[in-house]
């Protein structure tokens, strides 16, 4: 079974899983924070923040990748500073994770924001009258009640990160073992004669992973909703 995939395909699958995992884990707390701010606070520039968060969903991925290269590249304004501290994203797997996170972020924030908006503020008031300070209200009422949306948002973001191609290849190129994720590998295999069978295997892996994520999200969502909904 293990030798069904060649070493090069395996490398792509392992890298994709690693990139998507870190992209999702690191962006989740930020996503929850931004979703909460958009759902519950009113502040100047809220629409601008909302627009910036959603931009990667609308822009051509290549454009997003190029913007990342300009800002986070070793000669970019942010990338330059980070490079002085020894943090380099360009043409590294960490850069692939950044590209995947940025591309998946709007989907994650959207799902979490909707679920936070669905939490009845009257329950948060009740929690406050019982002595809970705002952080405790968030931790004991808002967060657990928004859990179905948070789980859904996380899994969608992971699946999106697995499939990210345009921004990744523009920002960090297509380096085997470093930035060649499953989509990049499929693309690369299709460029060489005789690569179709390898590409096909990765396509199957992609379908299985995506389907698995979808089923997992449905299952967790139902379990959590049953818990929150009573019975």
């Amino acid at each position, binding site marked *: 079974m293990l030798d069904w995939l060649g070493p090069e395909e395996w490398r792509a699958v392992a890298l994709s899983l690693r990139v998507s995992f870190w992209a999702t884990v690191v962006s989740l707390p930020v996503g929850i924070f931004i979703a909460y701010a958009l759902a519950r606070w009113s502040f100047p520039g809220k629409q601008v923040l909302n627009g910036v968060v959603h931009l990667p969903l609308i822009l051509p991925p290549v454009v997003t990748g190029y913007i990342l290269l300009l800002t986070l590249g070793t000669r970019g304004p942010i990338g330059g500073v980070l490079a002085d501290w020894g943090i380099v994203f360009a043409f590294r797997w960490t850069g692939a994770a950044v590209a995947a996170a940025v591309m998946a972020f709007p989907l994650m924030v959207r799902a979490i924001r909707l679920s936070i908006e669905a939490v009845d503020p*009257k329950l948060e008031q*009740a929690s406050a*009258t*019982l002595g809970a300070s705002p952080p405790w209200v968030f931790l004991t*009422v808002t967060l657990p009640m928004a859990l179905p949306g948070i789980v859904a948002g996380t899994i969608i973001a992971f699946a999106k990160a697995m499939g990210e191609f345009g921004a990744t290849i523009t920002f960090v190129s297509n380096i085997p073992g470093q930035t060649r994720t499953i989509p990049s590998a499929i693309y690369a295999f299709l460029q060489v004669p005789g690569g179709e069978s390898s590409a096909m295997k990765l396509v199957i892996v992609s379908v299985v992973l995506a389907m698995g994520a979808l089923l997992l999200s449905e299952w967790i969502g139902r379990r959590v909703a049953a818990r929150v*909904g009573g*019975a």
Partner: protein
Amino acid sequence: MLEVSIRHAFAGFTLDVDFKAPPGVTVLFGRSGSGKTTIVNAVAGLLTPDAGRIAADDLTLLDTKAGVRLKPHQRRLGYIFQEGRLFPHLTVKQNLAYGAWFAPKHAPREDMSRVVEMLGIGQLLGRRPGALSGGEKQRVAIGRALLSAPRLILADEPLAALDEARKSEILPYFERLRDEVNVPILYVSHSASEVARLATTVVALRNGRVAAMGPPAEVLGDVGAMGARGAASVLTARITRHHADGLSELATAAGTLWLPRVEGPVGTTIRVRIAAQDVILSRARPEGLSALNILEGRVAELRPGHGPGVMVTLDIGGDRLSARITRRSAEAMGLAPGQTCHAVIKTVSVAPEDVGRANREAVN
């Protein structure tokens, strides 16, 4: 002692109230739109009034002049909401324990098992709120507020969302709360029978102002606060016997009172609300009448209204009983203060929700 003195302007409506709530149950009474819920929300800190001061015992909760404005979670008030507002993701037991977890360690607190026993919710502890009936939810909500070690319990029409059967199921728990728990209660209601059963003090509100304030017997008889149709008396009576024909015999200071079956063992002291418009007066002791209750008393006061009616208040052995009759009848009978007069009350005109257990002060 809760002191409230606040002013708040809404579009087309100004709330301007000043009252003190002594220990016991203080009922904020008035129609919807009279400002009751606004006051409770201001006390809880869920709404900040334009100006004013709110203090519970020696703690200032709000003082707009001094710039004091405690956040809701700093006030330690147990709020019982109309819709319960139980946390759906927690079990009943976790809901009950929620407030206690945030209460300071030294705060005087109720014992969980005693509260569970008092409210009869022992079998529900493992369930989630989604699986509870309306009445059960409200009992858990009472317990949750009580167990948060509150300085004061706030209840905003906690029975309004329930049907009649559920109301009569929950009301006794508030009577027990009043009699067995040493926490003052601020209770919002638009129901005169709830006022008569529960209140130690009534604050009657009308259009954002305090229309009358005092013991329920006084305020409920106040035509100015209640309107002519709503005025009523509150009598204190002791159950002496339950009869097989469905009636209960009660002793009042002015004689025997017959009511439709009253819940409670012989010897229990109860309060009865009697609407002024259900009382008939007679100078001579009437004979051959279907009404079972004839109480003798003296005319204490005659108060003419704006219309054709007059409110006659009798002193019956120390209690006061009001009757609303026409001015024409009062003149024909030649009623005047000091005269002996008989009040006739139909047994069936007293509804079960008008009868409640009296609190300890009334018994002693």
